[in-house]
């Protein structure tokens, strides 16, 4: 579970290749759903950083996602800003609000923090209704979706999917830079033993708030993207359950794996639909059993499954360093690292 190299691992290569092949494999309507999954995946990346790397829980990630979405919508509807241009603002505004939510985290940890943040998630949809002069209340807000330019050969869905992938790549790039080296080590030290970290000179306050700020910025970016993809948002999209879904996505995918964030996002977007397709009356039951089964067989999340280790062995076969080692080694030892 060495965080600094996590995106160079086999699941990452697999997720990236699947993501790039999808436009050929999937029909347009599925591309749309995958784009939505990518937007959740970016929010889950934030939760990875916060929960997986700094050990703080936040059950308001869905609300922060919503704040990003509304920032994009409000900037577009009220100021006529191009939705794509609003994305950095969605990240910044959400990050500031995330720091406010993170303030109690300086005194509360664990279960108490879970309840406080879930309180925010529960209040959020009602707040949106109350502030209807800017949020549009129940009717929500419709934005001008960015259209594919004339020179673009593919469909509108493909265009938006490309935009999603660019946002995801930018997020992964920034997060892996952040986690590599001192910042990542500092966050993990805070997670593993805050008292010792403090005695080594880590500023607890700054560290915890910085993690909240970065995590919320990613939630905001994901939310902004979600708004662009959907073209329309209302409080209905950001019910308290959304925060739980994002947490489930994070844990099912693998809470310290960037590839896992996107695997988990695909899980929360598609699996509930599939289980309902199996039996419309028992969809929730089957989904629940799925979740239970997931935690029995894949405690470290899907990205931590042995299949990942198998792929890692394959990767060793293909890189030079691996080759020299393989020449004299027993095949069974390949996956041993």
């Amino acid at each position: 579970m060495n965080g600094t190299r996590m995106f160079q691992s086999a699941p990452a290569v697999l997720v990236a290749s699947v993501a790039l092949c999808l436009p050929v494999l999937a029909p347009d309507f599925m591309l749309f759903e995958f784009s939505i999954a990518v937007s959740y995946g970016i929010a889950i990346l934030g939760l990875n950083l916060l929960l997986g790397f700094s050990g703080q829980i936040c059950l308001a990630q869905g609300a922060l996602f919503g704040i990003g979405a509304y920032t994009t919508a409000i900037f577009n509807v009220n100021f006529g800003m191009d939705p794509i241009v609003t994305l950095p603002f969605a990240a910044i505004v959400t990050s500031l609000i995330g720091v406010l939510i993170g303030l109690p985290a300086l005194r509360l940890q664990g279960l108490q923090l879970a309840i406080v943040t879930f309180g925010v998630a529960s209040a959020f949809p009602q707040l949106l209704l109350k502030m209807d002069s800017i949020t549009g209340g129940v009717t929500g807000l419709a934005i001008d979706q960015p259209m594919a330019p004339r020179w673009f050969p593919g469909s509108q869905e493909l265009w938006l999917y490309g935009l999603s992938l660019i946002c995801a790549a930018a997020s992964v790039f920034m997060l892996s830079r952040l986690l590599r080296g001192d910042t990542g080590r500092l966050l993990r030290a805070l997670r593993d033993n805050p008292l010792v970290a403090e005695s080594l000179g880590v500023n607890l306050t700054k560290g915890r708030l910085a993690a909240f700020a970065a995590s919320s910025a990613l939630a905001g970016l994901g939310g902004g993207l979600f708004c662009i993809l959907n073209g329309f948002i209302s409080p209905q999209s950001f019910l308290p359950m959304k925060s739980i879904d994002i947490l489930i996505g994070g844990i099912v995918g693998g809470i310290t794996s960037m590839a896992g964030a996107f695997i988990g996002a695909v899980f929360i977007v598609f699996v509930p639909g599939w289980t309902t397709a199996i039996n419309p009356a028992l969809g929730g039951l089957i989904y629940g059993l799925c979740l239970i089964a997931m935690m029995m067989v894949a405690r470290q999340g899907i990205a931590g499954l042995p299949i990942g280790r198998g792929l890692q062995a394959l990767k060793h076969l293909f890189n030079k360093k691996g080759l020299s080692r393989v020449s004299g080694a027993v095949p069974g030892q390949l996956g041993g690292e």
Partner: protein
Amino acid sequence: MNILTVRDLSAGYGATDVLHKVNFTVEQGTIVALLGANGAGKTTILRALSGLLPSRGVVEFGGTDLRQCSPARRVELGLAHIPQGRGTFGDFSVEENLAAGAFTIRDKKQIAEDMERWYSVFPRLAERRRQQAGSLSGGEQQMLALARALMSRPKLLMCDEPSLGLAPAITEQIFEIFKSLNDEHGMTLLIVEQNADLTLQFAHTAYVMEAGDITVSGLASELLSNEAVQQSYLGV
């Protein structure tokens, strides 16, 4: 010259005070032992000194009043604290643990140099630099905790029960390292211990704690030969 002066230090957990106006000093370049039974308040003193626990009273370190200083600032000023139970990060590699000791150091070159320097002092850590710290033996983890504390270039090294959970031979090795740090690098050490006999052999001066207060102080050699002290305070 005293590197550390503590006057009327009181501290505790919640509403109850564990320390009751403790007074003591640590002279620069010496090894000072802080002895006493379980629950006497030894660990509480170290936590109060490193700022992990709020306290009242005066703590002067190298001429600076520490009362307004955050734990991080105290590390920067040269105060290092090796916690009880070592507190190495089990999921980190040996090297990452050492790097974690240099959170307050900005100069990358200095960090790299210091790392090599302590690897040469602790060759066993050098052999295991890529290994997870959690896989090290107790003695190796204590060495790692020590080397990690040294990465911040401390002026005063405080160590909480280094002997805890270690075999006697390993404990003696650790104390030999303390002694050579003191001899060769002029390091000042404040060592909290229950193992009085061994600690007094290495320390210059010693304080004995009882129920949140210092009741006996003196040269280590004197305490070692003072039978009354041995019987009543050190349980030998």
